[in-house]
Structure formats: structure tokens, C-alpha cells
């Protein structure tokens, strides 16, 4: 286990959305536009990084029976701190992400990585794991969101790519579109992984 192998693992081979299937609720909800996808990905990556570092650092002092409670307190605190700091100093970003920040608390990827990785590994490797998983999550979100925004609204990052005559497939930016896109991408990713 080296830093780089841990880092790469999360991006594709163990992609949190397509392979581990964690954090699907926020992923389905926010993947209506690429902008939302990037914002949610970055915010979640930041919280994941902070929580992985702290969880790995305190792993020897936390008794098994209360570990989940401790992780939740750590994660919720970081999410609140991110929320407060962003609203004070990065208002434009905060306005764009506002509703997604509290959602990060319930993002299973963060608790999942605390439990599955950071509680058993060094701070150093946990940083690699957090960055890899965070990037993997962001990448998957952007993939889903690109397809949904393109088909459902005719735009990518708000830029109109198809002429005015294009009639958007509204279903793609509604919840069914999220399930359709996510399902097909997951199937494609798994088929690809089997061949590799």
C-alpha cells in the first residue's frame, strides 16, 4: 500500500458511486447540472479529507463500541465549520452550494471511509484515500450530471450547445433521469472493469 496506489484506487477501480455504490442519495439529487456536480464533489472531498485525517489520528484512542458516535460528531462538526466559513468568506460559492452542504453529513461515503479505511490506517494513507475517493466521487457526479444536463436542458455548464430547435428531454433532469443515467453508467463501468 503506497500513497499513489491508494490515491488511484478510489478514482476508478473502487469508484465510490459506480463500484462501491455509496453516497447515491446526494449524487442522484444534485446531478441535475454539471456546476452542482462539481460543487458538491469539491465540498464532499474537503469534508472527507478533514474527517479522514482526524479519524485516522484518533483511531487508537477511540473504543470500538462508541466509534460510530465519535465519527458522526467529527463529520458533523467539519460540515458545520465548512458551512460557516463558506458563508462568511466565499459567498458566491456558498450561494451555489447552499443546500448541499448540510447534505454532506448524510453522505455515506464519508462515514464509510472513516469506518472502512481511516480507522485502520495511518493519517498519511488516509489522506490519499480521501483525495482518491473524493476525486472519484466528483468524477462520477460530473459524468452523470453532464449527460443529464445535456439531454435534459441542452446545455453543459449553462452554455447552450444545441440550437433553439432542440426540445429538451425533461425527464432527464427529473428524478427518473437520475436513476436511468446512474444505472446505465454503473453497468457500463462494471462491464469495462471486468474486461480490464
Amino acid at each position, binding site marked *: 500500500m503506497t500513497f499513489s496506489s491508494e490515491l488511484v484506487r478510489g478514482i476508478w477501480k473502487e469508484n465510490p458511486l459506480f463500484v462501491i455504490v455509496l453516497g447515491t442519495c446526494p449524487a442522484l439529487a444534485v446531478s*441535475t*447540472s454539471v456546476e*452542482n456536480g462539481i460543487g458538491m464533489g469539491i465540498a464532499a472531498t474537503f469534508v472527507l479529507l478533514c474527517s479522514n485525517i482526524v479519524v485516522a489520528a*484518533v483511531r487508537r*484512542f*477511540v*473504543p470500538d*463500541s*462508541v466509534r460510530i*458516535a*465519535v465519527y458522526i*460528531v*467529527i463529520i*458533523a*462538526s467539519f460540515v*458545520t*465549520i465548512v458551512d*460557516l*466559513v463558506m*458563508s*462568511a*468568506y466565499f*459567498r458566491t460559492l456558498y450561494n451555489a452550494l447552499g*443546500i448541499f452542504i448540510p447534505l454532506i453529513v448524510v453522505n455515506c461515503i464519508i462515514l464509510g471511509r472513516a469506518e472502512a479505511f481511516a480507522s485502520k490506517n495511518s493519517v498519511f494513507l488516509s489522506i490519499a484515500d480521501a483525495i482518491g475517493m473524493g476525486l472519484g466521487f466528483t468524477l462520477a457526479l460530473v459524468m452523470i450530471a453532464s449527460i443529464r*444536463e445535456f439531454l*435534459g*436542458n441542452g446545455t453543459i455548464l449553462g452554455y447552450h450547445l444545441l440550437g433553439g430547435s432542440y426540445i*429538451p428531454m*425533461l425527464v432527464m*433532469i*427529473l428524478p427518473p433521469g437520475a436513476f436511468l443515467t446512474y444505472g446505465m453508467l454503473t453497468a457500463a463501468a462494471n462491464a469495462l472493469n471486468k474486461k480490464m
Partner: protein
Amino acid sequence: MKEILRLMVVLTTVSALAGFSLAYVNEKTKAPREYQDRMKLLGSLNTVLPPHDNEPDKDAVEAGGTTYYISKEDGAVNGIAFETSSDKGYSGLIRVMVGIKPGGEVIAIEIVEQKETPGLGTKIAEGWFKDQYKGKSLANARWQVKKDGGDFDQISGATISPRAVTSAVRSGLEAYEKNKQQILGGGHDVQ
């Protein structure tokens, strides 16, 4: 027994540390957050009010539970802005800032907050949608969407959100008419 004590100590310590750090961050970011909130308010006031030489957020009057921000030029009132809202949207509250002339004619509206379906209901925040309220007053328009026999365009695939905005603006205008005397006639200033 000893084990229980250990669990208690660990959990209490972690929670206390989390509490302290949250209190610290909250305290540190309080002033900048209030500043940003005021900038946001001023930003939406400036988009819906005509050019003015006072500070509308300080020249505010409260009437019927709503704060009315009054813009003045050379001491004469040239616009009033207020926030109105509707819970009839698709999801959550839609908050709208409305700017009107003292006579009750809409200058502009601005969507302050909405959580409508992205790509559908969110179109209420687009320029063409907001612009159709310009120049409208209770007297010269039917305050419903076209589907319901009114004068305002709905959005294809999303009738609920425009309906909510229209009814929010209408109820705001009605409240203004009701409290007009108090708002314009030197009601007590609020800080």
C-alpha cells in the same frame, strides 16, 4: 464499570472539543457573515429599486409584519421594496423581493430564494420570467398564470412555480395597498 467510564470520558471529550471548535468558528465568522448578509440584502434591493441616494435598509418601515425598504432621491420617496413569499411552490419556500413605485406599480422582482426543480421550476429566476412583472399593478393585470386565466406566462413543464411567484407578488402588493398610509406616512423607523 471501568469500561463504561472510559466510553463516557472519550465521548464527552470528543463532543466538548467539537463544541468548543464550533463555538470558536461561529464567533470568528459572525461579523463577516453579517456583513455578507447585508451585502446580499443591499444587492437584491438595488436590483429592484430605482437609483437612490439613501440607504434603503436603514430607511425601513415595518407594517403588518413585513419590512418595507424605502428608497429616496433628494428626500422624495421613489420606490419601495419588500420581501414576499409563497409556500405553494414545488419544494420549499419561494422568497421574492419586489420593488414598486409608490403608486403600486412593479419596478422589478428578484427571486431571493427557491429550491424548485433544477432546469424546470428554477426558470422563475431567469430574466424573461421576472421581466413580465415589470409595470404591472393590481389594477392593470390579472394576477394569475395564463393557464388559470391570468396575464402571466407559465413555464412548460412547470406551472406550479410561476403560479407560486405570481400569488406571492400579488399578496405582497395587496398587503402594501392595505398598509400604504402607514408605510408612506412616516411610520416609525426601524433600525
